[in-house]
Structures are given as structure tokens and as C-alpha cells.
């Protein structure tokens, strides 16, 4: 695999050519926030949190998708990027009803942690307070649309890893919503295998396991890690 060198935050790094900026940055301990991204799933570039500045590029680019190239000069943290990331998370907090105090995922939520990390102590935009339903018709799991950030990890893992493609998105724009099959109650889905991968990858309390107390609400991803790691390496053209 051909090696290249690039500059990230004024430091020179060498990397393999097929790597994304995000992979390289993380390998070297440079922290770029992400939300929709999950190692081993096809990158989507939807949350825009991993945007970085690229010398010569008029607009910031998503680190999760942008492949590194020789001589690239990348800035992962600038005042502008930090401000943009804050605004993006604020938009997400305002979009649906993320009332942390009554969320099963409180203290174990990626969105909540991101907000704290980015220094968000209030949201400057109007809360939309959409009235969205919950779907608790499945025996072991439940879905609360009010917590969904439309990162589509569930859609992607269900399709690419489980092969069931139970989930997809209905509508568009701000009316987008995750649906099972023909927008049937999840409990009556004929394609769902009950594997729970979507639940474990969900960054927020949108998909959760029923019956567990709040204290037990950590997502359990260890069983998925190996599968996803293999997919990640396969995507890079390497094998374990």
C-alpha cells in the first residue's frame, strides 16, 4: 500500500493512501468529533461534525469520507469549525425532543456527551417540539422517534451487516423518519431478525432495550466490534 505524508494541525503524519482523514487523525490521537460515523459501516457524511479545513478547498470537507492525499494540509480545529460543530449539535438538540433527564440513555448518550464536550450549555435555536410517536411493539426493544438524530447507523448496520434491511427512512427533510418495513409497527415486522445490532449502535436513546433500568443502559457493542473491524479492513483491501 503506497504511503503518503500529510499535515494535520501543523504536524506531519505518514499514512496509507486509502485511509480517510478521520482514520489517520484518530490513529494519531487527534480527536475529531463524529456522530453518524461508525467504524466498519459505510460512511454517510450526514452529521457534518467531522468537517475539517483543507488547504485549497473553499469549503470544509468531511473527514470521514475524504481520502488522504499526498501533501494535504488539514486543520481539524479552528474557531470557525468549533463554532460550526456547536451549531450543528444545537440544531440536533432543537430538532427533536431530547429531554435528557427523562431519557433511558441519560449519561450514556453520544449526543449528550458531544454537547458537553463542545461546550454547549444552552441551545440558541427554537426547540421544534415535534409530536412524534414511540414504537414499543417489539418484545425486546423499543423505538422513540423523539430521540432519533437520523444518523442512520441502524439503517446501515441492518442492511450491510445483518442483511435484513428492516429499516429505511420515510419522507424527507425535516419530516424524515426511520421506518420498519412498510411503516408497520416494529413488532409486526416480518424482516426483523431481532438481532439487536441497530439498538446497540444507536448513539442516543432512540433505540433501546426494554426492561433495563437506566443504570444498565450502556450500549453493548463488543459482539459487533469484530464484525465491523473485519468490514473496515476489507474496505481498505486488507484482511486480518
Amino acid at each position, binding site marked *: 500500500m503506497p504511503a503518503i505524508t500529510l499535515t494535520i494541525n501543523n504536524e506531519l503524519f505518514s499514512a496509507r493512501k486509502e485511509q480517510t482523514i478521520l482514520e489517520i487523525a484518530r490513529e494519531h490521537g487527534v480527536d475529531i468529533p463524529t456522530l453518524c460515523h461508525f467504524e466498519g459501516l459505510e460512511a454517510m457524511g450526514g452529521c457534518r461534525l467531522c468537517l475539517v479545513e483543507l488547504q485549497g478547498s473553499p469549503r470544509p470537507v468531511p473527514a470521514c469520507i475524504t481520502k488522504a492525499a499526498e501533501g494535504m494540509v488539514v486543520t481539524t480545529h479552528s474557531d470557525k469549525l468549533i463554532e460550526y460543530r456547536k451549531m450543528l449539535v444545537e440544531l440536533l*438538540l432543537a430538532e427533536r*425532543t*431530547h*429531554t*435528557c*433527564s*427523562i*431519557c433511558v440513555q*441519560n*449519561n450514556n448518550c453520544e449526543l*449528550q*456527551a458531544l*454537547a*458537553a*464536550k463542545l*461546550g*454547549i*450549555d*444552552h*441551545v*440558541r435555536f*427554537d*426547540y421544534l*417540539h*415535534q*409530536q412524534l410517536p414511540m414504537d414499543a411493539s417489539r418484545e425486546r426493544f423499543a423505538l422513540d422517534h423523539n430521540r432519533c438524530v437520523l444518523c442512520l447507523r441502524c439503517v446501515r448496520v441492518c442492511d450491510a451487516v445483518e442483511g435484513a434491511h428492516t429499516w429505511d427512512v420515510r419522507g424527507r427533510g425535516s419530516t424524515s423518519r426511520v421506518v420498519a418495513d412498510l411503516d408497520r409497527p416494529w413488532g409486526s415486522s416480518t424482516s426483523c431478525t431481532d438481532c439487536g445490532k441497530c439498538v446497540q449502535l444507536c448513539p442516543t436513546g432512540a433505540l433501546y432495550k426494554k426492561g433495563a433500568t437506566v443504570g444498565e443502559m450502556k450500549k453493548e457493542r463488543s459482539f459487533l466490534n469484530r464484525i465491523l473491524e473485519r468490514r473496515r479492513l476489507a474496505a481498505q483491501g486488507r484482511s486480518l
Partner: protein
Amino acid sequence: MSKLRLATAWLGGCSGCHMSLLDLGELLVELADRIELVYGPLVDAKQFPEQVDLALIEGAVANLENLELLQQIRRNSRLLVSFGDCAITGNVTSLRNVFKVDDLLTSVYQAGPGSLPRSGEDGDVLPELLPRVLPLHQVVEVDAFIPGCPPDPERILAAITAVLNGEPVMLGEDQRTFG
């Protein structure tokens, strides 16, 4: 040195933030040397006083009474702090925002186990509800935020200490989480 004139208020919330304030325990005694509590549910003052240095406001703006009090507080306070998640996000109080006010009153006072306030008194008994519950900063300028439901006593202490030291209120990452 004159004491910091502290006021607290309890708008649309559960008073949990005030409980958390009390959870400072004996530290309150130490703070008492430097702070004078001039208004709030914990003091017997009918009118919001003038020239308040620091106002910690719990709860969201849910009705006209909240709205008027908040505006009064803003006029008379140097620093206004949103105290807890309800004040900052609307939190539990704002969960009613998906309903229309009329439907809400009907279901609570007529369809449910409760009974309608007697006529003639409803205006006094129940301040008029705003169509939507709002966080404080959507109504007035807010100077700082102490998130948490309720905020840990440490967060409250950190905020008050900063003000006492004349520094801006900047909580650390672990003290900033909502919920």
C-alpha cells in the same frame, strides 16, 4: 467588603434545583459570610428587590406570572443565571408543548380525576398559561447557564464561586451535561 446579593426564583419547575442548592449543606454556612440571600422560595420576601448581584432562576417560563417575574428579575439583576435544565431547555416543563393549551386544561381539569377551579377564581388560582413553555434565554438575556436536572451541588458551587471571584461562569466539560 459588601456581601453578594443573591436572589433565587422558582418558575415552571419542580424545585429540585433549589433542593440541590440546599444539598450544599454546611458549605452554605461558609457562603453565608459572603452572600446575602435577598429573595427566593427560601426567604420571606414578597417583592423582588432591586440591585441584585446574582439571580439563580430555576424553571421555564410557562405562564404569564413566570413571564412578568422574569422580566422584573432581569431589570433588577446584574447577572441572571439559568439554573437547571428547565430554565435552559424547557425540559420536563416543556413536554406539554406538543399539546394545545385548551386540550391540556380540559384533560387535566375536566376529563381527568381533577376538578375545574371554581369559576371566578380561575384567574387568581391559575395564572394564564402561555401557548408554549420557553427557556429563559428566549425571553430575556441570560448571562450564564448551570445545566443539570438537577445540577449537582458542585456545579452550583463552581458557578457561585466564579461570581464571587469576579470571573465568568464557565463550567468544565463534566459539569456541563444536560440531564
